[in-house]
């Protein structure tokens, strides 16, 4: 049976330290001013009822991925586990996928001149049974990663205990990334 990967982002535990973003840059050698992953922070509400809101910006690994269906050369493709990858050999950098992505997860790597995005660290870590680097570095355990087919995995247990929000769920892209929304403070 294939894997059903899921990445959970707990907005209650995130402190906005950006360690995940920095670790990602180091792991993948992301060029300056470009990002596979950002955690955006915003102060919301009116004094004294203020609260911080955090938003993870990265590929959400859609099951029905618009970037895959628009790619003319199958450079943007899904593997057997449904993870979306980029085959750099056949990418012509037409940027059609960048425009098609509703999550703004993609960019052109100016050094390699190909399209790039978060790949859950598949090559370097997940395929070797390691956690994605952002998950393993997170100091507050705001990130969880695992296989939903394993009943005793943390993501399985958390997903069945908590109310999850799937980003832009109305688009029916069926993301593999879900958020645990803020329970305290200001809601957006």
């Amino acid at each position: 049976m294939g894997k059903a990967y899921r990445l959970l982002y707990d907005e209650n535990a995130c402190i906005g330290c950006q360690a995940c973003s920095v670790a990602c840059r180091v792991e993948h050698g992301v060029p300056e001013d470009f990002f596979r992953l950002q955690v955006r922070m915003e102060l919301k509400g009116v004094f004294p009822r203020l609260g911080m809101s955090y938003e993870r910006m990265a590929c959400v690994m859609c099951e029905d991925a618009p970037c895959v269906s628009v790619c003319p050369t199958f450079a943007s493709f899904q593997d057997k586990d449904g993870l979306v990858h980029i085959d750099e050999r056949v990418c012509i950098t037409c940027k059609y996928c960048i425009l098609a992505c509703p999550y703004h997860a993609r960019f052109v790597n100016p050094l390699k001149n190909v399209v790039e995005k978060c790949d859950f660290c598949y090559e370097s870590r997940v395929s070797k049974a390691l956690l994605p680097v952002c998950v393993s570095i997170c100091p507050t355990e705001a990130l969880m990663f695992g296989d939903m087919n394993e009943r005793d995995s943390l993501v399985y247990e958390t997903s069945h205990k908590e109310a999850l929000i799937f980003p832009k769920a109305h688009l029916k892209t069926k993301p593999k990334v879900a958020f645990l929304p803020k329970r305290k403070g200001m809601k957006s």
Partner: protein
Amino acid sequence: MSPVWGSMAQYEMVHWSWAIAVYLFLAGLSSGSIMVALLVKWNRHERSNSSIWDAMIKSGAVVAPLSILLGLLLLVVDLGRPLSFYWLLIRYNITSVMSLGVLFLLLYTPIVMVFMLLVFERSVMKYTFLSPLIALIQAVKELHSYAKIIEYFLFVTALCISSYTGFLLSALYAIPLWNSPILPILFITSSISLGIAVNILIGLLFFKSTINEESIKYLLVLDLRVILTELPLLALLFIGMFYAGAESANAAKAALSQGFWAGLFWFGVIGVGLCLPLLTVMIALKSHVYRISYVVINSMVVIVGVLILRYYIVYAGQIYLG
């Protein structure tokens, strides 16, 4: 100043720039001018003058192949990796409008090039370095009994070219201004209007001896109808966005009211592109005399207007995301 989490530049980039806008213009020009040439050939030919080819057909036969070749060159050069463009010809993803476009272009481009050779057969004969083409022309002429069917086929592929440029954009639901079924229809109508304008202009400049006033009048009446269709189509595009949820409605509001691109829409697309030609065509047709100056001005404003429309759609779509 960049925020704590880093630069936002990547998220505010315009990924498809002027080259794509100009390609959309050139593809519309090519398909529009060949459709107009075929319409003249089918509807007005027996009333034509001494030459067997009306000036409108001649200009269509020149403009269509040259503009599509120029457009394709631009498209390839604009790729991040121009030299790997050949993958487009090897791998086809039928759910991708870009792949479908490649297939349409592979059908369309050779046929318009052969059409040009047939129309300019005598010129080809004149130059010895073109002599290898004579055999090709003779071979194609053998098919003369199928001429009408081939012409219909060419017309359909031209329709595919002008509409695919619209579907290319409208397939992306991440971009509210593009994600509308009106866009392909809008692109077809504006490419016909563009075809009429350019064919008349090129006809007046280079093929004056075979100009037929009646053909021009026929095209100007057609242009009037096309422009009167384009205005409500543009209205429908935005009305559709207002009823498609908050995100689309915000994008539509911004695209019509904020910044440089909103100004360009009202001044360039509506003013120069549609109202001005409407005015000149009505004056040209009303005066019942064939006044060259009106016709030339009309052609120029239509050309500028269609180019601005393509620019506006490409840029405003990527900038105003709602």
